């Protein structure tokens, strides 16, 4: 029999306000199941609030040389930094079959041709909207171009409905608008190269800011949007959508849980889910980007370099078809493993998965791609456009300055 090992596992699934913790409970079950299959492997799980985990706990633990064996991994620039510093276990050699099974979605968890983490959920961004409010404003079809979106914004305003809510107070929800415009303005190779070279001299980056500024100038958002957070409180951007005060919100695939969180009971939740629709970011009139390209992101796990070999094996188990199916069923989110896709029942998530599958390419969130330094500078610059103090050129200047310090 194998030697007994204990794997420490840090993840970000913490209980919500109502005490419910679907994901946390599911991870516990996955750990228990794995322990039943491999009695020599036990788990010591810690649930840590996302921001603490990502900004403080994991970096400090890695620095101290006493890191958890398995920890949450968001991929992109942050993973690249950790891999560069030699903190991450090379999973390519350890679990090649599991990685191959997941397909292209693993790309953000790869660096220099090596896989350093595996995602368990991945989805693309789009507009979540209320069908009933669209109907009330006389909108009959989902907008496919920016012109159509602008026309719909005007119709909603005429009907006395806030067209779009945005949680600009949290910065990133505002920044995602710019990312989407950049995706439409920039050619694929320019955008992807920028994540490696940090060269933002292509005019498409300024053009993205100009598109955004022109759109903000049409006043599509709720009042005081720079004071609005994205989640939790009823006056947040998600709260406005969930309570029927605004008609649309641009947000990632997790928004379904955030919105459901505002429903008082199961009946209200079912009614809300039935009234929610989803469509991808519209095509722009100009730009070199592919109109079907999508922005997205996900959550995954990495193993610490000194973790026992069982760590990699456990991650392979975690993303295997059956466990991913169970994830989709228990948590209701989007799995990564294509073999688990059939377990997704929410029609909006099904549509979202189809858009993701048919996209010309899926670009990881730009702030995650560029890492915290350049990504943070970018978000600051974008939010300044929202606040009316920044310029399209300013975003590029801030990014260039931050890139020069790394």
């Amino acid at each position: 029999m194998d030697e007994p090992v204990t794997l420490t596992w840090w993840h970000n699934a913490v209980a919500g306000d109502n005490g419910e913790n679907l994901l946390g409970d599911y991870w516990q079950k996955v750990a228990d199941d794995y322990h039943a299959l491999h009695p020599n492997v036990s788990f010591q799980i810690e649930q840590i609030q996302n921001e603490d985990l990502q900004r403080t706990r994991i970096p400090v633990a890695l620095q101290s040389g006493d890191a958890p064996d398995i920890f949450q991994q968001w991929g992109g620039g942050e993973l690249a930094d950790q891999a560069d510093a030699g903190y991450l276990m090379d999973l390519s050699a350890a679990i090649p079959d599991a990685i191959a099974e997941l397909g292209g979605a693993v790309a953000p968890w790869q660096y220099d041709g090596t896989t350093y983490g595996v995602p368990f959920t991945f989805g693309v961004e789009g507009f979540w909207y209320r069908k009933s409010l669209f109907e009330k404003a006389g909108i009959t079809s989902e907008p496919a171009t920016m012109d159509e979106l602008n026309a719909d914004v005007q119709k909603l305003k005429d009907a006395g409905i806030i067209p779009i809510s945005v949680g600009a107070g949290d910065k990133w929800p505002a920044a995602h608008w710019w990312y989407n415009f950049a995706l439409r303005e920039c050619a694929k190779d320019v955008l992807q190269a920028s994540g490696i070279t940090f060269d933002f001299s292509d005019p498409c980056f300024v053009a993205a800011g100009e598109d955004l500024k022109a759109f903000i100038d049409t006043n599509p958002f709720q009042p005081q949007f720079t004071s609005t957070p994205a989640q939790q409180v009823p006056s947040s951007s998600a709260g406005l959508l969930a309570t029927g005060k605004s008609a649309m919100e641009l947000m990632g695939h997790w928004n379904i849980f955030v919105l459901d969180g505002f429903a008082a009971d199961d009946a209200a939740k079912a009614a809300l889910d039935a009234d929610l629709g989803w469509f991808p970011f519209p095509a722009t009139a100009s730009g070199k980007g592919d109109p079907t390209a999508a922005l997205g992101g996900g959550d995954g796990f990495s193993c610490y370099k000194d973790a026992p070999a069982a760590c990699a094996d456990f991650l392979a188990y975690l993303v295997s078809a059956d466990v991913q199916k169970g994830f989709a069923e228990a948590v209701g989110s989007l799995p990564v493993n294509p073999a688990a896709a059939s377990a997704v029942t929410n029609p909006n998530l099904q549509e979202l998965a189809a858009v993701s599958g048919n996209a010309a390419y899926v670009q990881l969130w730009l702030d995650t791609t560029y890492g915290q330094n350049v990504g943070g500078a970018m978000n600051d610059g974008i939010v300044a456009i929202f606040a009316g103090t920044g310029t399209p050129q300013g975003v590029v200047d801030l990014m260039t300055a931050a890139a020069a310090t790394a």
Partner: protein
Amino acid sequence: MVNTAASGKGKGPAPGAKASAAGPSPERPMTRKTPRSGEARKWGEITLFVGPALVMFLVFVVYPVASALRYSFYKWNGVKAFSEAEFIGLENYRRALFGPGVFKTAYSEPFWTAIGHNFAIIALSMSIQLPLALIIALILNRRFPGRTAVRLIIFAPYVLSEVIAGVMWLIIFDPNGIATKLFTDLGLTPPAGGWFEDQKWGFWTVFFVVTWKYLGLAIILFLAGLSGVPQELQEAASIDGASWWQIQRRINIPLIGPTIRIWAFLSIIGSIQLFDMVWVLNKGGTVGQYSTIASFMMDKGFFRKDMGFGSAIAVIMFLISLIVALLYMFFILRRDNSDSVKKAR
């Protein structure tokens, strides 16, 4: 020699301490041990009493300050091991203070803005909080029914945790909150960008919250000072026909001068280090409308993973605090200190 050593122990449990405080006693040399063992004992006691505190001070204050100074000369993202960080001399300081080229709008301008906010809060504390607290303290400095309750209410904000108070004000100043409602009901227009985020209003809203939070401390300190002013002076003055205002101006306020000066000192240092409230409200504002040196440091150091630069900001903040504190001690508190020395004599 023996005498000073004994009195130097102050409150130490040495048997001779009391005798020395009462003046030299002819019997003492006979009861005392040899000077040598007294010396050893003195050092033993110093080690015992000062040692643990000194160790804590060295480990948790001196070492981190020295480390921050060291980090500030490096380009370090806080992820890789520090041994692999690149030494860049004073580059982080140059970027923070002078921001050549591309660094100007990204680093030095926001940093100077943050410093400006800190000093604006100092100036406003002295020009608004001080007179306000003084007037309230003078009014409350008399017996009236419910005095304890009023004092309690005034002091309550100071006792509240910063995070709780911050969240409370976030709810009040929410775009759909009661402040907005009150304003619109009165026919006024609430700030377009939101209370905390508006370019014009943001800083003032935060200053209002900070004043609400810390005014209680000033009032309680002033009240404590006022309770130490001898009643007879005020009675004598009123018999001589002095008005209430004259009594305050000529007697009460001058006599609580030392208290006011100490409060001002605490307020200045607190203003330079202001962080918790500003961070809870929204990390210094989406575009730094009310950023402070500390929130700027936190943002760049931890959230941008620019640890070397963040350390440089920390060192600059330390130096500003130190210089301001020394200047204040030298020019303003010196009088109080020499007063107390004179009194002690």
